[in-house]
């Protein structure tokens, strides 16, 4: 019941100040959507009014409102509960990408589901059993469906394993793990997420791993913050790859990371899950700073104030989302950087898409931080 969500997220503390709506990237372009009004309507008019409103599917769940709310209302959690409620009534958001994502999830539910190890290629070293498990998420799948916009999912997975190998870690890779359920979670499919969580935890436990390394902030968020509530103690520690690398970088005794010169001027897009939900802000910057020859120029809005890449959970990709993406790309271009670095495959995909089909008045290379780091490690030391 939404009543419960109101109690849990402290939505009744709402002072009606409107900071949430003022900060919301969606409200800026779509005046029909307002976090403040959504909360107010739930409190005054009752849950039905909110649950049946198609606008609840417009939220990006970026969490900017949560950051700024003076009453610390957890708006995104409230909205997630409203979506779960809406699902029960048969309402859903618009499924983007011609339902491919939904269809892939259905294939993953088949008992025959196996991901062949061949997607990773020959270079990176992996094992069947290891203390460390690498969870690539849906990189292989995203690599297939977004190839046309130049997104290379496999390259991110390869770079991540190469970096782990460089640290002396040979990770285990599973073939039965499924989607982390992030998008199902944010679109209110709680039962499905519980099912996915159980399968993932069981698949990881079979390899005897003590820690699980992620290169996708959304998978990391799910394992760190959501899975313990759904399936209890995980029995392993979720680690984000950038945290692991930054730790090694700071450890002078271990000899740093051996990064080599890479001449470039880059800017960094903070993924929402990483910066706003998991507070991984300094680590990517420390890593970028450690690459010799690389200059990091920050955008106007960074870290916890960073603008979202404009779309999430594969619901709603409209004119509004495109305008948010163009706004972010314009901001990135204004820094004078030639490369936009991000740490989330979704930011990568969404910004690439906008870069390709919107007029942003310039061109940026978009790349993942792990790919950049792997490139820097492999670079020739003489001149780069």
């Amino acid at each position, binding site marked *: 019941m939404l009543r419960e969500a109101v109690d849990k997220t402290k939505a009744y503390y709402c002072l009606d100040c409107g900071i949430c709506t003022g900060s919301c990237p969606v409200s800026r372009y779509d005046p029909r959507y307002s976090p403040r009004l959504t909360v107010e309507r739930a409190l005054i008019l009752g849950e039905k009014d909110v649950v049946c409103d198609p606008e609840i599917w417009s939220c990006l769940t970026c969490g900017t409102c949560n950051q700024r709310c003076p009453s610390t209302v957890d708006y995104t959690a409230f909205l997630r509960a409203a979506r779960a409620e809406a699902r029960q009534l048969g309402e859903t958001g618009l499924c983007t990408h*011609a339902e491919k994502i*939904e269809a*892939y999830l259905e*294939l993953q539910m*088949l008992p*025959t589901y196996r991901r*062949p190890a061949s*997607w990773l290629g020959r270079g990176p070293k992996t094992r069947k059993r290891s203390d460390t498990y690498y969870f690539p998420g849906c990189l292989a799948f995203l690599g297939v*469906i977004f190839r046309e916009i130049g997104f290379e999912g496999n390259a991110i997975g390869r770079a991540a394993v190469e970096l782990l190998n460089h640290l002396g870690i040979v990770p285990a890779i599973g073939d039965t793990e499924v989607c982390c359920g992030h998008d199902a979670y944010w679109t209110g499919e709680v039962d499905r997420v519980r099912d996915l969580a159980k399968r993932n935890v069981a698949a990881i436990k079979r390899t005897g791993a003590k820690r699980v390394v992620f290169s996708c902030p959304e998978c990391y968020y799910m394992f760190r913050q959501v899975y313990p509530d759904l399936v209890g103690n995980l029995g392993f520690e979720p680690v984000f790859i950038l945290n692991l690398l930054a730790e090694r970088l700071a450890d002078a005794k271990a000899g740093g990371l051996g990064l080599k010169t890479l001449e470039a001027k880059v800017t960094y897009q903070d993924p929402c899950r990483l910066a706003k939900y998991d507070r991984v802000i300094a680590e990517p910057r420390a890593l970028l700073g450690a690459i010799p020859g690389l200059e990091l120029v920050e955008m106007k809005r960074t870290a916890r104030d960073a603008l979202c890449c404009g779309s999430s959970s594969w619901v709603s990709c409209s004119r509004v989302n495109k305008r948010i993406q163009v706004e972010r790309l314009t901001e990135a271009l204004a820094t004078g950087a030639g490369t936009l670095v991000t740490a989330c495959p979704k930011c990568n995909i969404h910004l690439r898409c906008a870069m390709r089909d919107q007029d942003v008045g310039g061109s940026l290379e978009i790349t993942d931080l792990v790919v950049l780091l792997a490139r820097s490690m492999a670079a020739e030391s003489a001149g780069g």
Partner: protein
Amino acid sequence: MAIVACTWHPLTAIENAARDGVTYRPDVAVVPTKCTGVVTVAFLLKLFAKGLEGVLVLGCADGDCHYYNGGERCKAIVEEAREILEISGIPKQRLGFQQVANSTSEEFDKALKSYLKQVKHLNIGRNRVASGSRR
């Protein structure tokens, strides 16, 4: 298994095959579509997710589309669906694509036989792949 057939040449070929008394395996469901160029990747994948073991898409020959370029478009759609099947542990040969040159029953017979040859080693119909709904 299912045959997704365009209603122009391929479906007419299947109807002619029925008229000519051509026999083929009984576990085939024919799904008519206006043009194979509008079949989506998700639709093909969901047929497998429902438990089907084989899907054959029958389109018209290149340059022979009633609309514009359905057959050519379908090649790319099937190719993408195959790649996704591959990373889901389903052999990609299970999804076949054949183009029929005309509406004769021989063309249909040839296309189906060629697909069945390609998946012979996969024993379609003899093992239960999934517990999903079956015909």
